[in-house]
């Protein structure tokens, strides 16, 4: 193990800002993508279910 | 022709144009993308030396912004002309010049504003410093509406006068030159440590002037186009 302490680990030899921004932004992007997909899926399913049951007045007209 | 219904008509036109833009959200993204691409082409053509790039940076950014404006403007009225909406606009019971202002405003929000917002990032790529970035944004904020106002005159003339493409460019571009000089000048002088205030206030003057003159000229050109 090369890190003496947690603070040393977070400092990353003085490059903490760059290293951690890279990793955190990457993580955020991926998490955001997954969440966005989740929401999109929920919306699509809701709409589709509405279409399967009964149908809206727009399709009925 | 009450004042309130005037606002209604202008509001209507702004709303409709923004709605059209929302329908095609990519439109708004487009002028930004164009700017970014054109700006990135230059280093490809010129070579990667940072010193050279820093010197030409403000000029390149401004020329690119100007081109983006010119391109998106060239067709503000064409769609309306072809599908007959322009006839309807001319028959509206409000002064045409006022409607023109509405149309230009909507257009600027869609394609000018994004350029202004994005410019600092591009400035960074060319190695501009913090203060110069501020001046760059200010200069574009004052300059792009002027470009839009002037550009609509050209766009309206394109509709009417035959074989007018060249004529329009001849008319419009010389009018763009001062804006370009003051705009790029503001950034350059702030990079040189002189501060860009003088140039910025000249830009402001251009904006006011164009706001007063351009809508009338455009309205006249539109009427001629439709005769």
């Amino acid at each position: 193990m090369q890190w003496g302490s947690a603070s040393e680990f977070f400092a990353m030899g003085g490059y903490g800002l760059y290293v951690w921004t890279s990793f955190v932004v990457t993580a955020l992007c991926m998490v955001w993508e997954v969440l966005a997909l989740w929401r999109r899926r929920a919306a699509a399913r809701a709409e589709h279910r509405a279409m399967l049951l009964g149908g809206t007045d727009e399709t009925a007209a | 022709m009450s004042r309130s219904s005037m606002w209604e008509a202008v509001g209507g036109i702004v709303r409709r144009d923004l709605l059209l833009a929302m329908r095609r959200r990519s439109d708004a993204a487009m002028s930004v993308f164009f700017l970014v691409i054109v700006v990135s082409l230059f280093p490809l053509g010129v070579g990667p030396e940072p010193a050279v790039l820093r010197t030409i940076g403000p000029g390149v950014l401004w020329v690119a912004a100007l081109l983006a404006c010119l391109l998106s403007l060239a067709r503000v009225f064409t769609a309306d002309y072809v599908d007959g909406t322009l006839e309807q606009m001319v028959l509206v019971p409000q002064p045409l010049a006022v409607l023109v202002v509405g149309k230009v405003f909507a257009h600027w929000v869609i394609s000018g504003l994004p350029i202004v917002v994005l410019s600092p990032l591009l400035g960074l790529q060319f190695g501009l410093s913090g203060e110069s970035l501020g001046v760059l944004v200010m200069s574009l904020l004052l300059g792009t509406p002027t470009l839009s106002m002037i550009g609509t005159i050209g766009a309206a003339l394109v509709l009417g006068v035959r074989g007018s493409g060249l004529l329009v460019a001849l008319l419009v571009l010389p009018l763009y030159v001062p804006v370009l000089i003051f705009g790029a000048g503001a950034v350059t002088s702030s990079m040189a440590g002189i501060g860009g205030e003088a140039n910025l206030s000249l830009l402001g003057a251009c904006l006011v002037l164009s706001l007063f003159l351009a809508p009338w000229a455009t309205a006249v050109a539109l009427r001629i186009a439709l005769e």
Partner: protein
Amino acid sequence: MLQAVTLSCRRGERRLFSDLNVKVEPGTLLAVVGENGSGKTSLLRIFSSLLPPEEGSILWDGEDIHQLKELYSEQLTYIGHLNGIKDDLTPIENVMSAMALAGEVCSRTAAQEALEAIGLKRLIHRLPSKVLSQGQKRRVALARLWVSTRPLWLLDEPFTSLDAASTGVVTQRLHAHLQRGGLAVIVTHQEVELPAERVQRLRLAG
């Protein structure tokens, strides 16, 4: 009352018509007929003030429309050869924005009812207009007539591309408009199925 006084019109080299006098009373319709190129559209554009006449003038309630300017624009609804609808907007949005532009209020439901009145089913109210068929586009343009409150209607070949049913519907709407004391000038190649006392025909010689 709409009146044309010693009107003449020249396009290019040709004089299309000259010394034309005609009067349209409230409650009546002027049907302009004539061969292709005889100047019907030109006449309608002069009536709408889009085209300045070579000579003569148009009077609205006795006043020259050239003087009235926006006051005259407030009186009319003009629908030309071109539909004036946006391909990217839905029919509802098209009707609403056309009305807003003209300075008339038009709610979403009003627009919807107008579209249904002219026979466009709910189903396509929300499609972008560019996917509509030729006749459906024309109907979207004409739907404005169901929400317009203007006394003077200027219509250039309103029935092109319409099927028989829609032609009937539009004719009925015209009739209602005339009965309410409105005026209309229409250009057409077809017979207009309206009571003869309401219709005045003007044949351009060509």
